[in-house]
């Protein structure tokens, strides 16, 4: 009798061992994907679309949560201090990540090294736009007026030290003009302020304004990229118009806390890359006006470092202007 019990126990433990070896393969429980921006915004929309498609391949639910605050600093701080086991990933938007790190007043507890870049999802080029009945029909109109009235033309951003703000500074330098910069919080107040005539021109990203420009509610003056955006084919680029140095975009991707084991990173990258290429993802992002540009692993890390370099000078300029 005792022998049978002993054998039984041995068998049970062997089975448990084998089963747990299976179970040890990532992922064995839901994965959290944190978005450091409010629900409903461009980053959040992109993240939710991606998560809903990726979870099928992942085999476990991908739970999107929002941890808003301090221009994504709260969420990023949270991601940086999580256990690097691959079950907590964070969305990041750039250059917000970099300006937080570079601005000493923000007292960020992390730097680029605190994260492992996994994969980029979207690169959303910046665009300069006005309301449909604005007196400015082209970028030239705007710049000419800006030269005549220094520091009077009100240009709005969606947030201080965001890509829009840096873009305005680049434009000022390239065209030799000065705007009166007004910082608003997000796309919705910016839309209200521009349509209501509170500001004269706005800097934002293609994804936020493309459908409205197409429908004629807004007019795009220039896309701040080297090639025309397929969402705004009739809007010239800053490169075409002679301002080739004014290239700006907001990109969004996924990071993890530093130290996630390499095989798990690889698995995560595979899952998300496949999801990004999936026709359903492509279609939904297309309808949302967001341009997909997957950049994986080391290449993404280099991309982030390059942006950080470019931001250094601009952040200094912005801080001096305060």
């Amino acid at each position, binding site marked *: 009798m005792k022998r049978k019990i002993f054998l039984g126990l041995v068998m049970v433990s062997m089975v448990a061992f084998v089963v747990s070896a299976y179970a040890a393969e990532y992922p064995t429980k839901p994965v959290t994907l944190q978005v450091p921006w409010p629900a409903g915004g461009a980053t959040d929309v992109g993240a939710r679309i991606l998560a809903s498609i990726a979870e099928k391949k992942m085999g476990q639910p991908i739970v999107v949560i929002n941890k808003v605050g301090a221009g994504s600093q*709260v969420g990023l701080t949270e991601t940086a201090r999580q256990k690097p086991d691959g079950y907590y990933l964070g969305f990041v938007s750039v250059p917000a990540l970099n300006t937080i790190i570079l601005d000493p007043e923000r007292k960020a507890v992390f730097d680029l090294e605190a994260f492992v870049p996994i994969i980029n999802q979207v690169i959303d080029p910046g665009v300069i736009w006005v309301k449909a009945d604005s007196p400015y029909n082209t970028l030239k109109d705007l710049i000419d007026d800006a030269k005549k009235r220094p520091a009077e033309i009100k240009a709005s951003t969606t947030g201080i030290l965001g890509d829009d703000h840096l873009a305005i500074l680049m434009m000022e330098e390239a065209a030799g003009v000065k705007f009166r910069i007004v910082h608003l919080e997000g796309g919705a107040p910016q839309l209200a302020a521009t349509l209501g005539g509170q500001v004269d021109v706005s800097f934002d990203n293609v994804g936020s304004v493309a459908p409205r420009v197409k429908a004629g509610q807004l007019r795009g003056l220039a896309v701040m990229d080297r090639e025309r955006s397929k969402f705004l084919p009739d809007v010239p680029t800053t490169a075409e118009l002679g301002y080739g140095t004014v290239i700006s975009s907001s990109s969004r991707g996924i990071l993890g806390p530093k130290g996630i084991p390499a095989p798990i990173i690889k698995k995560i990258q595979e899952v998300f890359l496949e999801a990004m290429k999936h026709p359903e993802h492509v279609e939904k992002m297309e309808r949302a006006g967001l341009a997909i540009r997957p950049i994986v692993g080391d290449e993404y890390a280099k991309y982030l470092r390059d942006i950080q370099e470019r931001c250094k000078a601009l952040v200094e300029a912005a801080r001096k202007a305060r």
Partner: protein
Amino acid sequence: MEAFQYWVQGFSVATLPTNLMFAFIGCVLGTLIGVLPGLGPAAGTAILIPITFNLDPIGAIIMLSAIYYGAMYGGTITSVLVNVPGEAASVITCLDGFQMAKQGRAGPALGISAIGSFIGGTFATFALMVVSLPLATFALRFGPPEVFALLVVGLSLVTGLSGRSLLAALIMTFFGIMLAMIGMDPVRGAPRFTFGITPLYDGVGFVPVVMGLFGVGEILISMEKPVLEIIKTKLKDLLPKREEWKVSAGAIGRGTILGFFLGLIPGIGAIIPTFVAYVVEKKVSKHPEKFGTGVIEGVASPETANNSYANGALVPLLTLGIPGSPTLAVLMGAFIIHGLTPGPFLFKERPDVVWGLIASLYLGNIMLLVLNLPLVGFWAKLLEIRYQYLYPGILLFCILGAYSLNQSVFDVGVMVAFGVLGYIFRKLDWPLAPTVLALILGPMMERALRTSLEISGGDMSIFITRPISAVLLILAAIVLISPAVRGVAKRAGKD
């Protein structure tokens, strides 16, 4: 005439069995989200967006709007029953609603909320159909200086919340403003008063503070009484008395109009219409001193205002594509995910979606009324659970709610700390509502002030040179000075 045709078309879309079902599910889910403290309508709606991925766009939008709506009502239930506002807009309802519940009148309080919400929402839906673009475009003229002036008016309403001591109300207001300063500077992003604690970067957290001051504070106060009587509610007490219907009618009327028009101004937030409606009601009332002790108009007015606001806020969203609040931004995100960008062209290109939504809102109003009125008796009975079980239950409920906000124990700690503070303030008989008002309005005012100055290049006269803001500031001055003037006049009259 064309509008009528669209209206009919809208109804034909809204009454499709599948869409009716989506609206129903949305109402139920929304009410649940509203009842659970902490999980606000914005987060709740966002979480439920993926459920709608597999639905057709119209069905999805209908369901999400019903959730938004239902959440507005759900927040009321907890405000009345246990003095814990389910979400920001329900704070004012606690003042009279909870007092009514303590007197065994939870039924009428909840009932009049449901009815007022229905009337307010229905009227606002009609207005939405008729009014749309020109009014929304006018509302765009409310730029940062006008919003600042409006917020100053809002803050000046504190005088209407003062109860016995104006001085106490002012002290509590400034306390609220001090709390509002904690966090990241809205313009420069530098942290203030955070003492290096990362969760404080975003401020002290409105929901934990309110849950602490009102909910936990109430529990602590009740612990003082040695024996607590159970509140018994008789069935016939479930409906408002005849006199109450009469005064409520006026309150509902005023609340509807105020709520709708304030909803047209983007960026105001749901809490301001409720405060404004309450204070206005108090000022026109024949017995203002009774407010805060459990008068039914004190419940009818804000509840109507907040549903009519919810509809009014849809006007800028549907006509211009501008979401007036975080929850609406989530709704707009949902629109976008389904390939529809709200704005003037949506009206033109997909009238079936827009009118279907509007018709569905109307039906949603009816559904909420039908769903909630019968449940009033059930909710009132809940209060009959013995206190030794009820109060720990409420405490648990609050702790879960506070934790659920950001999965952070810090928020729970904040709530408990403010619970203790709430207890102290209650013992001193100092009003809590001004602190809450200041906590909400403070950051908004600061942002509006600084953005206005960015627009004017540092010139303070912008507030006076722009007509709308000048008028509003004068109004604020009148509201602030009038109690003092009246006080002086009374004393002069006595001599």
